[in-house]
């Protein structure tokens, strides 16, 4: 019995020894794999890289908005061209874009929080970093609200019970949706405040800012230009407010040359290549060609510019029959406009399949590895200024020149094209803007819904004749679709994960959660 007691005692001692050596548990439970602190530059480079890969990829762009505005068309399996998108593409884009926004919001927090703002100073002035993050956030929210309507929104400068996005750290895991009119007004306010807080004598970021190379002045111009865009978007809804902001934006300084363009240029390696290079070359899928209505517009066969072939045709597309590997390496000769043919848009699968890839034009510049994804560029500013000044001719020509120069069109070709161009008017300016917005499908889509231009797009359930005489029909897969989609349905994941938020969204949408409900911005 004595031994028994001894043993018990020993067990007890062992217990205490064991219990007391849990003090290294904190070390044991800190992750050896990932850091708790990072430079803000690494967040900025990630956000800029990811936003391109999440918005301009083969799914959210390639199989949704890019074909809907009829820049591209799918070669086979045309369901998405005909408005039947994959729910997963929508869910994935939604989630990815908001998590990208979180990186930007974190930059704001790191540069605001007293505990960390000192550490961040070495990467750029605190105010400039905050401003850059606010501007880029606004660019993203603009795209999102134009796509869905009411969305969960977050503002750096405004406290509002309806602005609940990106607030998980504050305990809000199911944010409510903010109405679009309120979002628009606040986005414009954010841009105003961001532009105002920039110190142009300090860099914005010492590195990692692939969009504007850390240039604080360029960020300021981007902020004002974007403010011009947003104000023009909503000018029909509140002219006084819009004009006030346009005046201020112009006074604050817009983009003045292509050097001011906000463009993320990609690299030659497979992992860092442009989104569409990844689709065509890395994933080895030739799924898209340039759409017939767009090629026909560029060739002058359709639309308001019948006199000349747009020289951008030879940059936007490759001659028909060029193998994709040769397109990616630029190993072909451009030839004449006759060598270019668009993929008929909106046709049924068996019609699409009968059209051989060799008979249509693949995209050219956008599938290069080092292609630059445009967030906003000078040519758009010119077209906005033309519109603001009642379809001003000078701005119109500047816009066309800026676009062509950016795409690397030789000056002689530009001069030649501009020489024979019909004068500025609403249709000509907006159609040129549409041509210039190639590969920025979300903005082109917004402009179509706002203005109804270009007129060259093929409407659902209509037949059209190709230049080689074949009649094709756009057969939509959404019943009652009569025009381009008005919006995209809310991410299905929100129905499951954000029940109350989704309810608030339905209440603010003013219609059914489908593609046919007009957004506030586009209601007359």
């Amino acid at each position, binding site marked *: 019995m004595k031994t028994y007691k001894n043993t018990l005692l020993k067990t007890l001692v062992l217990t205490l020894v064991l219990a007391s050596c849990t003090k290294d548990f904190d070390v044991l439970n800190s992750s050896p794999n990932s*850091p708790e602190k990072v430079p803000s530059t690494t967040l900025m480079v990630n956000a800029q890289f990811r936003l391109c890969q999440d918005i301009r990829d083969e799914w959210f762009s390639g199989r949704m908005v890019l074909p809907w505005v009829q820049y591209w068309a799918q070669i086979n399996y045309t369901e998405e061209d005909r408005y039947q998108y994959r729910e997963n593409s929508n869910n994935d884009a939604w989630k990815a874009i908001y998590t990208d926004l979180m990186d930007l919001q974190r930059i704001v927090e790191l540069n605001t929080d007293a505990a960390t703002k000192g550490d961040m100073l070495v990467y750029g002035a605190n105010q400039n970093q905050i401003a850059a993050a606010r501007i880029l956030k606004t660019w993203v929210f603009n795209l999102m609200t134009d796509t869905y309507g009411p969305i969960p929104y977050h503002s750096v400068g405004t406290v509002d019970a309806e602005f609940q996005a990106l607030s998980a750290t504050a305990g809000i895991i199911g944010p409510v949706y903010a109405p679009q009119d309120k979002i628009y007004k606040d986005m414009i306010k954010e841009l105003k405040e961001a532009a105002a807080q920039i110190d142009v004598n300090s860099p914005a970021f010492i590195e990692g800012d*692939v969009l504007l190379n850390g240039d604080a002045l360029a960020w300021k111009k981007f902020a004002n230009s974007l403010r011009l865009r947003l104000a023009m978007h909503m000018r029909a809804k509140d002219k006084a407010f819009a004009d006030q902001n346009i005046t201020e934006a112009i006074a604050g300084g817009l983009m003045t040359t292509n050097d001011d363009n906000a463009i993320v240029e990609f690299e030659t390696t497979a992992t860092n290549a442009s989104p569409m290079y990844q689709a065509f070359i890395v994933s*080895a899928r030739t799924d898209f060609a340039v759409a017939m209505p767009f090629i026909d517009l560029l060739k002058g066969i359709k639309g308001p510019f019948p006199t000349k072939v747009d020289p951008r045709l030879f940059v936007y597309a490759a001659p028909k029959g060029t193998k994709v590997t040769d397109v990616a390496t630029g190993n072909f000769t451009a030839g004449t406009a006759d060598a270019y043919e668009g993929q008929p848009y909106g046709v049924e699968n068996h019609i699409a399949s009968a059209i051989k890839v060799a008979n249509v034009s693949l995209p050219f510049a956008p599938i290069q590895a080092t292609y630059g994804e445009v967030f906003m560029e000078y040519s758009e500013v010119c077209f906005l200024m033309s519109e603001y000044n009642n379809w001003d001719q000078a701005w119109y020509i500047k816009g066309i020149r800026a676009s062509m120069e950016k795409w690397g069109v030789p000056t002689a070709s530009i001069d030649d094209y501009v020489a024979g161009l019909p004068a500025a008017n609403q249709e000509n300016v907006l159609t040129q803007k549409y041509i210039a917005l190639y590969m920025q499908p979300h903005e082109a889509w917004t402009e179509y819904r706002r203005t109804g231009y270009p007129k060259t797009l093929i409407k659902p359930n209509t037949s059209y004749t190709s230049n080689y005489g074949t009649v094709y029909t756009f057969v939509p*897969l959404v019943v009652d679709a009569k025009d381009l989609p008005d919006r995209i349905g809310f991410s299905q994941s929100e129905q499951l994960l954000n029940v109350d938020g989704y309810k608030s969204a339905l209440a603010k949408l003013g219609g059914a959660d489908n593609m046919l409900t007009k957004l506030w911005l586009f209601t007359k």
Partner: protein
Amino acid sequence: MKKISLLLAFLGFIGLQVLFAQTREISGAVTSGEDGSSIPGASIVVKGTTLGTVTDMDGKFTLKVPTNAKALLVTFVGMVSTEVPLTGSAKYDIKLKSESISVDEVVVTALGITREKKSLGYSVQEVGADKIGNAQQSNVMNALAGRVAGVTIGSSTGTLGGSSRVTIRGANSVNGDNRPLYVVDGIPFDNRDFNSTDAARGAGGIDYGSMANDINPDNVETISVLKGAQASLLYGARGSNGVILITTKKGKSKKGLGVDVSTGITFEQVSLLPQYQTTYGGGYPFTEQVINGKTYNLPAYDLDESWGPKYEGQKYLAFNNLFDWEANGKKGDPETSLWLAPKHDVKDFFDIGVLYNTSVAVSGGDDKNTFRLSYTNEDNDGYMPKSNLKKNTVAFNGSSQVSAKLKAEASITFTRSDAVGRPVTGYDDNNVMQKFTQWGQRQLDMDILKNYKNPDGKQRVWNRTAWDNATPAFSDNPYWTRYENFNEDSRDRYYGSFGLNYEFAKGLGATLKVMRDGYSFRTNERTVIGSQAMSYFNDNVRVADETNYEFMVNYQKQIGSNLSVTAHAGANRMKNNYFRNSMATSGGLVLPNLFTVSNSKDPAVIDDFESHKEIQSVFANTSVGFKSMIYADLSLRNDWSSILPKENRSYLYYSAGLSFILTELPGLKENEILNFAKIRGSYAQIGNDNDPYKTRETYTNYAPNFAGVPRYSTPNTMPNNALKPEIISTWEIGGEFKFFNNRLGIDVTYYNKNTKDLITDVEISGASGYLYKTLNAGEMENKGIDLMISGTPIKTNDFSWDIFVSFNANKNKVLSLYKDVKNYRLTNGPFKATINAAVGQPYGAIMGTDFVYAADGEKVVDKTGRYLKTTAVKVLGTVLPDYNMGISNEFKYKNFSLSALIDIQKGGSYFSTSEMWGMYSGMLEGSVHQNGIDIREKGIILNAVYGKLNADGTVQLIDKTGANSTAAVKNSTSISAERFGGDYYSRADAQEVFDANYIKFRELTFSYTIPTRYTGFVKNVRVGIFGRNLAIWGLDNPSFDPESAVTSSGNIQGIEGAALPATKTYGFNLKFNL
């Protein structure tokens, strides 16, 4: 002397024989005490020596014994070991009592503590070696299917060493581990699987199987299943999902060396393929092409669909005609082929798999030392072309009574497995089933495809980009896929333990044990240059180890004649480490045929990860028995887990049980009809932790750098620095009853498990800035019934018939998640449907869009004649079955033995991605014939009424023109077969949800043991034939085996995605002793 013999024992050279000068010969027979039948193979050892023998087929023995010998030790599996005093007599008739039906049955419980079964307040079920080895299982888990009540086993069909999903009494945790703990000879055994989420959800990947596949079934003596937390409490939190306790074969005290040999051959054959259509070929209508002035019919080479022309023997230019013509320098005109259904269809693609299995074990021992050394070799050619798995296992265990008080035990097992060409599953370009079922062309003939490569090394692919462009469009030739783009893996696994057991005094002892399990696992995948996809190579190394140090004191005492006490107390320290290094090429390979990561065109992509975890514990258990009639049991354990924040790190949990043996009551004792009756009940509350690194936020790196700057992002999962342990409360009541001279036995348990504060990465709205938040969230309930019935309808000296039924019905319900969060998405299908833990639903709810129904229950179509689907997602089914049942019958006649096992599953659902794409692409029979009508010729009018959806989700009836209607108007709009098939993808997800019911002829074994008199020195020669999964009935969709949806042992279940076909296996084996 002791030391030397110990050493020798450990080196496996036992056989030391002490020679005695004087011996005499005795003889006798060993028979069963119950029915007098003879017992062959019983071991008889002279006590205190290594001298001994084994009884022959008739239970007889002769033995030379030293004249000074005092007694014989007689042992036989399933019988009570008996000591027979040696008298002067030369003849001994020894009767052994059966153990299995004895009320004194002893079972192995947690931490290897053996307990009298009658004293337990919970249910434990054992499965013996005879049930595991006879059908030559290569996987221990599958051997349990249909045999253990409360254990649900989904085994993937026909993957070379693929996964089995095992849950005991339902799922406890929302996104934590629901797999039971495997313990092999006391060693906690890592049972992770490394299948990607994509592999699990049918989106593509390789099913490597779970690490528990390393357990060699040939070495298993018994499997004891501890189902409830009461039973497994001493294992701590990890035992909360139940424990599968495996005891391996050990050396026995007997004369000289024993050699056990087992060898077998197993064939595996594809038994179920989807129902393919055989009327129409690939592509769309032919197009015409002029080559050298001649016009040819071209199929749409570049499409991977089968909406092509009807087979009418049309002349056309097949892909192989073009390749032959090109190889010949395009001289002359290409040959043409006839457009006909293939002579060699999909089933001819598959081989008959062959598994050779040989196991040799040497064992021996004297009364102090025992050892067993075994070697097993498995060589398995899968049914997929170029697939092979080789496995070699060496295991050793030994024990030595070092002194009267000290006993030492040691074991070590080493397993090496090498696999080439494991089948790829799911929606993956390297899964041939995806190309056969989801995306392909139906006219392709396997005999023609077999010639997959030109002499110049270029691929002969049917899916050419165009007639004049041989680049693959979407698909590789399936033979190219198998023979060129194969994967490889190899794994070294070792596990072992060393233990000392010291007896301080009678009834008081202590053990000290060190246990370690570890492995390194290397996998690589390749895509060769010339494939459809960019060339690629990756190499992944995973190293895992776990060490447990355990100290335990045990105490046993009989107090007076009525009271007995057993007690255990101890401590454990567990350390777990894991490391992974993944490397992959980027941008393609530079040199062909060089498969190294450094052959990467762009800088290789590297990803590494490690994790460390420690749990320290103290525990105690005591059981008090009164008059062998009432037993009370109490267990406590306290854990300190490194993964929890400091203030919540320590947590205590407990269990209590009561067992009452009714047949010990005076009035019921010695009852003729009711031989034994016990009622039992227990309660337990157990805490659980989770994975490390969930308490502090860290940034996620995305390699490689961009613009020279590293990319970091806020994490997708929001951490939680206030995490608490999960709490699992469970109670069970049950009873065991034996009737009619133990000919009928019933064991029934009702259990109720409630888990709360589950550590869950709750999926939240992405708009919050995070996708998941780690929370103590959720409450889940499992309740159900385990029932085991065993019966022996006939038993004579020569013939016996035994029936065994196991049954489990489990009802699971997710009671709550977190605040307003009503749904946790476990995964989504690769295209549609999600698998969820949804409040109010059973775990694993399949959710998606449904058909729209009118008020009268009719489905609704839009004015174009296509089904409407709901905007809102709905529950379409659940992956959990209502019940599982196994019925086995065993017949024995003299030396013949026959057994058959039927396994039944009722309820549960799965989502089929193959049905969706197979219909979309015109591959499946349903895309041609509906109700016997060729819908490609006639179109189809869906049985529905016209309507449209209002904004609020209600239905507005319409007429054919789309105008609102008050009355339902029957659909009369015909749609094409292509539209009908296409809508399997674009319309309601409910179209692809099927019941997971099945009835399987799981196992049939037949064996004959040759009487020793014919076999000389070779003893117990047993030859057997067996078959597994011989037939399947009751399928909702005849194209798929519901079990084929299993491609992971983890929580993600219920999605079929180009699943590998179901297979049947059959073969024969031979076992004997020397």
